[in-house]
């Protein structure tokens, strides 16, 4: 659902006010960067796509429609940038090796301060999410992490609502399976 507090921001962006860009950037940078980082799992790629997303906002601000849902617009642009990047990566033979090596990032050394159960649960969730196929990660990030409505996500991904439901069901089953695996691996021998 569209956030009603977005409207003044969209209006200011349409008028080309630079301060509106500052406000939009401050409001969405963490969500967009987190989304991209979790989606592509490579900080270097996430950084490029993050930059591309916000430069696109700056260039297109005066052409935004009056009723633009800015949150959905930004996530759609970020997601499309990632899809486009993946497509080009497939054509670039030199990157195929990197893609094949696109496995889970090396586990971080345990933080002595992060001993709380909640922190461990979040860590498990992050790792389980990162190990899912891209299509499943994408739908869980948009529906689960970002809380978009399913019909909105279907629109963002360019698929039908029923297809989105199927993809979400499959993704949740995969996530549950991966979480169980991660938890099993953590049980001390």
């Amino acid at each position, binding site marked *: 659902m569209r956030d009603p507090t977005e409207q003044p921001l969209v209006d200011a962006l349409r008028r080309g006010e*630079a301060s509106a860009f500052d406000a939009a950037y401050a409001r969405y940078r*963490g969500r967009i960067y987190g989304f991209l980082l979790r989606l592509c799992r490579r900080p270097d790629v996430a950084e490029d796509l993050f930059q591309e997303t916000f430069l696109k906002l*700056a260039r297109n601000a005066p052409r935004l429609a009056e009723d633009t849902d800015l949150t959905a617009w930004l996530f759609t642009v970020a997601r499309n940038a990632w899809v486009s990047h993946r497509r080009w990566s497939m054509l670039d033979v030199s990157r195929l090796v990197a893609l094949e090596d696109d496995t889970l990032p090396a586990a971080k050394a345990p933080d002595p301060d992060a001993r709380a159960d*909640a922190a461990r649960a979040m860590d498990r969730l992050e790792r389980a999410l990162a190990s899912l196929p891209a299509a499943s990660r994408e739908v869980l990030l948009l529906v689960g*992490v970002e809380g978009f409505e399913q019909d909105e996500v279907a629109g963002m991904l360019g698929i039908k609502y029923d297809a989105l439901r199927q993809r979400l069901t499959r993704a949740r089953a995969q*996530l549950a399976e991966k979480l169980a695996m991660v938890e099993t691996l953590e049980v001390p021998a």
Partner: protein
Amino acid sequence: MSPIEQNDDDLRALRELRPVEPPPELGHRVWRQGRAEMEAVSAGSWLTLAIRAWTRVGLPAALVATVVGYLSWAVTSASALYR
């Protein structure tokens, strides 16, 4: 309906994942570039507006004024010849 409203613990847990702030150097660079783009686009849009106003209003008005002025002068001059 959002799946989170359907009491799904797995999706609810996902909501607990926090946004990730970009590294400060990247964050500052993107902000600086975005702002510069925004200012350039705004300046561009004012120029576009000014050019559009001139070609759609200013130039036709100037042409009409010139034609009307010339015709007035021509008629006045021709009348003067017959007097």
